[in-house]
């Protein structure tokens, strides 16, 4: 299925590859690292976010993960200068959200949660409005809109009112308005909610493409998305950062030990279980009536030993499959703990 999506949307991917950011000033671009420093937001007595600090470099895509209500949206609202923090600061380049909001807003593209749009406006008119309000020079507006329409695949729908569009197309309009002024920083709050699988693939492709030139932060609670798109993941829970690293790193951390699922026939289960436990590299062995779950000691592998054991006893192995811990498990571990 995945493969089919890919073939179908190959065209789209190719068009994004051609995307150029000619007008971007090389010097300003490299300066737009985001540094979040001890950020806190209180609502009454409750801390929506609690002294979080992290840094995102230009050209990096940061996935912002967390259960609902963890503080993702609040953090994004502060970064985009919509809200002020209770404590701490966010700096982008040499600017601070506390003092240079006007400067920063020009350089940030933002897709808010639930993608609010003026539904009564036609797509093109809305993009013109967004460009004008973001201060895109008049002579560039037409070109930028054309570029966005192509990039976001809006060509068929561009003369409709936004209210008449399907959710997927509205999302593309939301992305187009966020990128119309070619910002250095892109903040996307759950950009793929409510899209069908094909559209999700396209939007991810688009984000990955954007990430090469810009600093991108996007939030989601869909885990495969993070693995597919991000260079780095931050998981937050209850307003605190509970994990920070590359997706592969996080997975490795969680899956320290090798775990396998076995199905062994032609033997007495109790006997098999006892014999398995005698192998020195095995830390844990368990039987659930159908399959055995075997966890090796950290850094050890016991597959060969298991095979040898079965051969010696004339048992037949009908299944031996590694259980990989995925990010989902990392997520559950760090957010439920």
């Amino acid at each position, binding site marked *: 299925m995945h493969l089919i999506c890919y073939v179908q949307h190959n065209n789209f991917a190719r068009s994004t590859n051609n995307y150029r950011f000619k007008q971007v000033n090389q010097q300003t671009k490299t300066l737009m690292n985001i540094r979040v420093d001890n950020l806190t937001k*209180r609502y009454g007595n409750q801390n929506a976010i609690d002294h979080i600090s992290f840094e995102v470099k230009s050209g990096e895509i940061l996935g912002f993960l967390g259960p609902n209500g963890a503080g993702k949206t609040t953090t994004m*609202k502060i970064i*985009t*200068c*919509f*809200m*002020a*923090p*209770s*404590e701490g600061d966010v700096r982008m380049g040499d600017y601070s959200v*506390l003092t240079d*909001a*006007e400067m920063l*807003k*020009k350089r*940030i593209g*933002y897709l*808010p*949660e*639930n993608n*609010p*749009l*003026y*539904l*009564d*406006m036609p797509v093109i*008119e809305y993009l013109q*409005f*967004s460009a*004008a*309000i*973001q*201060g895109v020079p008049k002579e560039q507006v037409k070109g930028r809109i054309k570029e966005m329409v192509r990039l976001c695949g809006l060509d068929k729908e561009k003369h409709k009112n936004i209210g008449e569009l399907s959710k997927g197309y509205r999302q593309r309009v939301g992305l187009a*308005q966020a990128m119309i*002024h070619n910002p250095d920083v892109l903040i996307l709050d759950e950009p793929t909610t409510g899209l069908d699988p094909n559209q999700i693939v396209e939007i991810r492709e688009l984000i990955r493409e954007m990430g090469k030139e810009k600093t991108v932060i996007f939030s989601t609670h869909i885990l495969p998305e993070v693995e597919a798109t991000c260079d780095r993941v931050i998981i937050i829970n209850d307003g605190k950062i509970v994990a920070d690293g590359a997706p592969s790193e996080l997975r490795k951390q969680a899956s320290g030990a090798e775990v396998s699922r076995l199905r062994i026939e032609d033997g007495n289960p109790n006997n098999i279980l006892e014999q398995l436990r005698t192998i020195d590299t095995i830390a844990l062995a368990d039987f659930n009536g159908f399959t055995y779950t075997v966890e090796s000691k950290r850094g050890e592998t016991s597959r060969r030993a298991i095979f040898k054991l079965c051969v010696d006893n004339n048992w037949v192995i009908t299944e031996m499959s590694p259980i990989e811990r995925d990010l989902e498990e990392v997520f559950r571990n760090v957010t439920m703990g």
Partner: protein
Amino acid sequence: MNKIWVIAKRELSTFFDSLIAYILLIVFLGFSGFFTWLYGSDVFLTGQASIQPFFAIAYWTLFFFIPALTMKMFAEEKNTGTIELLLTKAVSDWDVIIGKFLACLTLVGIAIAFSLPWYLTVWWLGPVDHGAVWCGYIGLLLMSAAYIGIGLLSSSITNSQIVAFLLSLLIGVFFLILFQVLANSMSGIFSYVFDYLSISTHFESITRGVIDSKDVFYFLSIAIVCLVATEAILSQRRLLDR
């Protein structure tokens, strides 16, 4: 300045796309025309080429119509979340507020301008006090500015358009009627203060043909105080609650 115009233009085109503008124009002109020409103390009854009945009616129709224009300004944006989209663009809160204010004022201005034919036809019937007419028009615009300020303030307080509408009518009733009633029922300094606060005092003095800087100051200060309060409400989200 450019940003203000962009915002005002969008609001105006929304008015015209959503029929609000046409409804306002038709009903405003219909009402005021009806009472100027056909009913009550109209031109033919009084036998005078006077356009005063028009101002008296416009005074009331605007009282109902302006809240209908302003109610959606912030309430709807807050309700749908577009306010977040708008305020994270490269505009200041003031750009947004003044843009919306100018859009409403422009639409009311267009409505008032369309009533010029009545002035011209009445003029054709007989001699008209031109000074009083032009003062009346200026008075209507100034009063509209004050109402729009009140309307925007009400709209910024709530997420609900209906609440915004009723709230601005309520505030309007105070300025239009209740302050006058209070002024009449009290004496001394209170009577003077309430009389000063009443819109009708200032509007009547303008439509008589005298533009007093006191009256201009009165209307503009209502508008400005309301807009400043609106800004204070909008910028609450950016207050540092340390």
